[in-house]
């Protein structure tokens, strides 16, 4: 949970840069796989405006300086997950990141890179295909065996709290991009898919427990997590995938000891939908 200390927030007055700042220097990664052998950093100097975010700065470049810049965007308020980037050495959403905050953190210029370890389509736009394939692999939807009740499936506020952290995921790909086990183990499904598996296991309404575990109880799944915690640091929504994955490991062991048959059911058992 974020700090509630009034002083810290008030001092920063998020939209304000240190006194005297009038221009900002942006260094932006540029790469076109069809024409360039390797990427480069382009430098742009733009006027600083109070409240300017990194996304605003990219639009200023696009509209005023270089119409060839490519980047993703949509909501500009931190909920759609389109603009996750590697900004001044951290995973951040460009739309939520105040230029002023970067300057206050001591950065002299704004450094914008695409999500690392993903193929670049152009500039800051990365190919998320593998991310989505991994997400789909874990059957990320509710599975129920009992007939739907006439009204809602009951769930107490306490039960709802068990999934609160995980349903806040915006599928931005930051954790996936940050995970050394994803970088090195080509088949690892990655922290998002693991965390989402745990989200469904923790949901009191879902009825596919052992079958879900079966989709991650292997060397491409939960066991591939070596608790490096990069994902925790990377998540712009303060979700802790590592802790969810440890939950998966514990449940998997318990299911193995039980000799649970569902572990071998396979994805198809969860995909038999309408």
């Amino acid at each position, binding site marked *: *949970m974020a700090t*509630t200390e009034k002083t810290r*927030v008030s001092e920063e007055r998020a939209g304000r840069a240190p006194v005297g700042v009038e221009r900002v220097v942006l260094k932006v990664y540029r790469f076109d796989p069809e024409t360039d052998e390797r990427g480069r950093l382009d430098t742009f100097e733009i006027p600083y405006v109070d409240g300017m975010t990194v996304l605003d700065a990219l639009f200023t470049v696009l*509209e005023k300086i270089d119409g060839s810049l*490519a980047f993703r965007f949509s*909501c500009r308020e*931190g909920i*759609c997950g389109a603009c996750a980037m590697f900004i001044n050495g951290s995973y951040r959403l460009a739309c939520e990141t105040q230029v002023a905050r970067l300057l206050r953190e001591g950065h002299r210029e704004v450094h914008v890179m695409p999500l690392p370890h993903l193929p670049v389509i152009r500039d800051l736009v990365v190919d998320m295909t593998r991310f989505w394939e991994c997400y789909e692999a874990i059957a990320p939807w509710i599975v129920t065996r009992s007939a739907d009740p006439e009204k*809602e499936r009951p769930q107490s506020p306490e039960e709802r709290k068990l999934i609160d952290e995980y*349903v806040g995921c915006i599928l931005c790909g930051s954790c996936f991009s940050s995970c050394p086990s994803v970088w090195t183990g080509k088949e690892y499904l990655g922290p998002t898919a693991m965390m989402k598996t745990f989200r469904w296991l923790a949901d009191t309404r879902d009825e596919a427990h052992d079958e879900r575990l079966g989709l991650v109880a292997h060397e491409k799944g939960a066991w591939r997590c070596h608790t490096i915690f990069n994902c925790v640091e990377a998540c712009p929504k303060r979700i802790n995938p590592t802790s969810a994955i440890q939950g998966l490991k514990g449940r998997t062991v318990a299911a193995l000891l039980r000799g649970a048959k569902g572990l071998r059911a396979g994805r198809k058992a969860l995909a038999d939908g309408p």
Partner: protein
Amino acid sequence: MFYHEILVVGGGLAGLRAAIEAHDAGCEVGVLSRVHPVRSHSVAAQGGINAALGNHPDARDDNPERHAFDTVKGSDYLADQDAVEILTGEAPARIYEMEHWGCPFSRTEEGRIAQRPFGGAGYPRCCYAADKTGHALLHTMFEQTLRRGIKVYEEWQVVSLAVADGRCYGVVALDLKTGRLEAVGARAVVFGTGGAGRIYARSTNNIINTGSGMAVAYMAGVPLKDMEFIQFHPTSLFGNNVLMTEGARGEGGHLLNALGERFMEKYAPKAMELAPRDIVARAIQTEIDEGRGFPGGYVHLDLTHLGAERILERLPAIRDIAINFTGVDPIHEPIPIQPGQHYFMGGIDTDADGATEVAGFFAAGECACVSVHGANRLGGNSLLETIVFGRRAGAAAARFVKDEADGVGGEKVEKVLAAAMAEATRRVTWVLEADGPEDPAALRDELRENMFTNIGLFREEGAMKAGLDKVRELRERFRRIGIRHRGRRYNLDWARNLELEGMILVAEAIAAGALARRESRGSHFRTDYRERDDRDFLKHTIARLTEDGPELEYRPVTITKWEPKARTY
């Protein structure tokens, strides 16, 4: 060129719900979306979705009819009452369905879907998932799309509709990643392309909400309805106009002017902060205009009396947003807010099944106008509209495909698509090669400022005429734009300039409709005609695109149970 039996355009709630319904009816479905589905604007909806479930202790005797009445009154009696009864009647089933599909709604102590009070509603009937209801619903809907294996084409922008002899045969779309233009054939097309908020300055909307779907339909000869009705949300964050949910007032938040007065008692003594949005937005703007706002033009949304626990549990996202963008922590300080453009009540003219004048072309959600919102939409009814009418449009498209026996052969389809492709190619190539002196980014900024200033919260003949003239000037200047980048792959400059052309056309329809409506109704408030005029204007505006711009005609409003009355709160 490729084909789908049914092609849905738009990966938000309405589009995906239509796709799911058509798929479940046995049709083969493809979805084209400007962004990955979870990036669609539905994700940004915060406060909730209405349905008369009666889960709140103060709403035990709520029912769909009461929900319908509130909606009709909120609409200033311009909504079609038969459509509203469908909306509110189907609401509980759609909400339970979303819950059965796994939507993580917040819960009551009894374990039922939690509901909160919302503006213009007689009962607390707004179902919510904290202040991230759109996110919860859209992710759930996307999960159901994955479960069905429905094919989604991400980052495709539709540039035209293939129509011949009153029948739709598909679309022409630009694959942004490759820059390739493709004709996509379909036996039925459903648009769920969202609103056009970005035609206005101070919009709460996603950057992608440029109304491209409305424009594409309008250019293909499909009329737009009630375009002059633009909702201004009372509480958007001062500075960048990010939405601060109505749920903040639903949870008990107060609006205070610079004198510290709870000024809503002057404007809506009974409903106070929970009057409908048109009334609250105008009240705030009046306070600001009359000098009781803060320097720069805002008032305060005060949540400090709610306490940290309630804010952290029910309004965590808007707290994060306020801290992030203004440095204000709502637990300790009031949030600076001002009205911001939020929603289009108008849109592509459809019936209650999403059908349009063009056979085989359907639309649902914000891009469409059934009309269930009339002159002013109630908070919590737009998410509801997406799932109720998204489903109905998907079902109607499936029925259309199955019933259709017009003997359209492959040859005709290919001819129509080829013609549409040739025309679209000419247009998009022109934009890609444009080398005139006009800067499209400047045109876009001028358009947005013009619409906010001249056809905004308070309207008047002279300003609106100037606004319309300005739009026409921009339309001319667009012909002399220059592009900055001519590469085809992921060319944002190109894609955004294509959208700009449509934004200007839609803006013209708004301005023309607003000028012609000489009354005040809901969100359309004229200082030169301050009263509602049921004798002359209890009717829908229908705008058709001609060579000389929009041509207006009118259509009666359907009244079933509720005769128009004075609207007080």
